[in-house]
């Protein structure tokens, strides 16, 4: 995640100012003020990290890495929590300094990763409080747990770029999870073939979620239902129907709730690389699909005719319609695609992690994916970076609760939700989304 800078131009202040020339002076002054505040905040974080470092040098922090997937060879990186805080403080101070020096022209968003990543590691080390942690597993876990969020965020990006708000990610993922379990279990019983049943299960989940995406588009476009309400309808309805199915069918007939599971895949040659092999190249296929999808979507949104039309529909549908773009068709297509991706993301939860369907198993991941989308400035690569942060938090939290750290699990559990609120509130900086997202479009 070194550049979130998109060819399409996500320069926040630049776009807003050039759109309104008569406000240029005011906007520029505001941008400069915001930049100064941001720089000061980074510096303050740095100073605070130095302060934390001063008292933490005696606490050891040791992270354990495995060399290979097989065998017991491992090595440890032993540092101290104080050192980690020191590094975070330096990183934060560096970015703060850069921000103050460059002013409003500074493209700080990618640098945010430089600030946050060491802090997260330092907090993790401080919470471990001297216990040795298997960092290979934590990093693997972050990539794995980031996957449904990445996919969800891709779906969100597609729909919002087309001008449709998509609150319904959560519900579509939930339905996708449920459908994949039922279809997968049935097909597995009849064919006994794991690969066939998994494929059919995922395809079914994608199809049903795609239909839900079309329903959302239909309600929003044909009946002009407020897109937030339409999304809420799908979220509540998905919760109701999946709970109903679980209690009435899955709970009583466990043969419907034993889907095939997706195991980790060893990529040839690459997975034998020392250290990075176990972390990056022996993950579940979902992770690689998500990464490929990120690249493909970036290409499609910013480098193809369809992508240009998609963005035009979301930014200025009236103008897009005037030049002959069928905005409504674009929106239907985008929401269908978003629904398909949501189905894939939903199927991840039971097939890859839980091994069965449980009530409300998505647990707000759709909303966290929306936060990742906003955090990543509506750009696939940025959204992946944000999803990684959430994934790391999740993975670290799982390890901490296994180790029985003296932090109440309720506190750890609510961390992703609080971060989501913070991100949505734009405390880390306001980003401009597609201008016309959420507004109905009347085709002339």
């Amino acid at each position, binding site marked *: 995640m070194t550049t979130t800078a998109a060819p399409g131009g996500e320069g926040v202040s630049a776009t807003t100012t050039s759109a309104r020339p008569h406000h240029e002076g005011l906007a520029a002054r505001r941008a400069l003020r915001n930049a100064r505040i941001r720089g000061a905040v980074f510096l303050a974080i740095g100073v605070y990290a130095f302060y934390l470092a001063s008292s933490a040098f005696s606490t050891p922090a040791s992270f354990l890495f495995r060399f290979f997937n097989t065998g017991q060879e491992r090595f440890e990186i032993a540092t101290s929590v104080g050192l980690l805080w020191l590094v975070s403080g330096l990183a934060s101070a560096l970015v703060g300094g850069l921000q103050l020096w460059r002013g409003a022209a500074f493209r700080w968003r990618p640098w945010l990763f430089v600030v946050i990543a060491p802090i997260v590691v330092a907090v993790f080390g401080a919470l471990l409080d001297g216990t040795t942690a298997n960092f290979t597993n934590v990093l693997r876990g972050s990539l794995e747990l980031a996957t449904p969020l990445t996919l969800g965020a891709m779906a969100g990006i597609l729909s*919002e770029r087309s001008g449709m*708000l998509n*609150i319904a990610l959560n519900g579509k993922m939930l339905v996708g999870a449920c459908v994949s379990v039922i279809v997968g279990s049935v097909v597995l019983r009849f064919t006994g073939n794991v690969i066939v049943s998994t494929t059919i299960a995922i395809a079914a989940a994608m199809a049903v979620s795609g239909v839900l995406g079309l329903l959302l588009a239909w*309600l929003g476009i*044909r*009946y002009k*239902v*407020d*897109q*937030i*309400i*339409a*999304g*809420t*309808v*799908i*979220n*509540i*309805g*998905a*919760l*109701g*129907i999946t*709970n*109903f*199915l679980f*209690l*009435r*069918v899955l709970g009583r*007939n466990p043969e419907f709730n034993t889907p095939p599971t997706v195991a980790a895949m060893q990529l040839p040659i690459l997975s034998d690389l020392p250290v990075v092999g176990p972390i990056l190249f022996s993950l579940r296929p979902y992770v690689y699909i998500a990464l490929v999808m990120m690249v493909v979507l970036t290409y499609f949104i910013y480098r193809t005719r369809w992508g240009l039309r998609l963005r035009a529909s979301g930014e200025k549908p009236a103008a897009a319609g005037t030049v002959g773009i069928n905005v409504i068709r674009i929106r239907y297509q985008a929401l269908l695609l978003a629904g398909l991706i949501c189905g894939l993301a939903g199927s991840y939860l039971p097939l890859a992690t839980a091994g069965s369907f449980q009530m409300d198993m998505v*647990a*707000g991941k759709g*909303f966290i994916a*929306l*936060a990742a989308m*906003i955090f990543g400035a509506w750009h696939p690569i940025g959204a992946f970076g944000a999803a990684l942060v959430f994934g790391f938090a999740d993975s670290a939290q799982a390890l901490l609760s296994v180790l029985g750290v003296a932090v*109440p699990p*309720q*506190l750890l*559990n*609510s961390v992703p*939700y*609080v971060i*989501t*609120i913070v991100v*949505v*509130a*734009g*405390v880390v900086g*306001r*980003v*401009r*989304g*597609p*201008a*016309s*997202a*959420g*507004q*109905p479009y009347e085709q002339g």
Partner: protein
Amino acid sequence: MNLLRSLARRALLPGLSVLSALILGGVGIIITDFDHLSQLGSDPLVAIGGAVSGVFNGYGAMIAGAFGDPSRIATALQTGNERDIATAIRPLTETLVAAMPLIFVGLAVAISFRAGMFNIGGDGQLILGALGATIVAIALQTSGLPSLVILVLAIAASVVAGALWGFIPGFLKARTGAHEVITTIMLNYVAAQIVLFALIGPFLRQAGSSQPISKSMTWVDVPPIVTLPAIRLDWGFVVALVMAGVVSWLLFKTTKGFELRAAGFSPTAARYAGMSAGGSMMLAMSLSGALAGMGGGFMVIGTVGQLSNDLSGGIGFNAIALALLAGLRPSGVVLAALLFGALTTGGKEMGIQTGIPFDLLFFIIALVIMFVAAPGLIRSIWRVRVKPAADVPSMAPSAPAGTV
């Protein structure tokens, strides 16, 4: 006559929405009735007949569970035996008991929608209100204060806690533009975790319980309306009705209420008219949270008697549906809450008697919201001409661009 006709016209759309949703719910029951449908190959008539009668059994149990048996009530009233009367009217009073928090949260949703805020954090505000009331009630257990004083203090605490939890998304929306749908849902999850956390310690926790539930608060109670055994209906219900009147007065007879509604109709226009749209948002969300919290307080002190983290049971979602169904009118909220109260108690009875899961209601409720929000859909399904209500702002205003 004219009044009747206008009432009928007003009720037609909501009525058809509920009816359509119930029919689709019935379809859901039929296609998941595997016991009967598995005979489809050998005996299709019996299979389909059995599945369809399953729907009638289910909805029949729902109606009986919600309203009781009229003839039984009549005979019980004639004999005058307290126990008989109690068992006979219990379904009816349970419907009112279920309607009580629905009125509170329904009003909460209505007030926030009127101000242009799509508050779906009713669950979180309700349960934090309940937590506030529980903490105060348990802290004052040995204080020697009279039960009524503790009650008032506990309800006050629930109002404060709920208002605070409502204020957060209002503040974030006003200051940063964070969309309240995301923040309120996230705050629901956080509230649930807070309640679980609060229930760990010995201060609130029922001694010796493996479940996260609080002590049952026997030393403080909301006074009952009728003193019969096993009847839970209490003055909380009356307070809910009074609050409906208060909200109605506030929204339609005061300047602040006008400002709230103006902010809901058009924040830009309100701003140009010199009103503070942000202030209205924060005020509406705080009021909304206060109402939901008060509902939680009355639930936990009165009808339920102890705090658990699943106290709400989806009231927040029901409240959205009923507030939309009611056209965001406080009087309509009361009527719709009675209907939903009946659905809730009846739905639980349906679950016990026929094994059709209660959660079907959420599906039905989602459909109700969909039909109410898309009147065109109802019109084209039922081929009726109904004018949409004119005096309601476009249900929830369109979100400002770029925040979601």
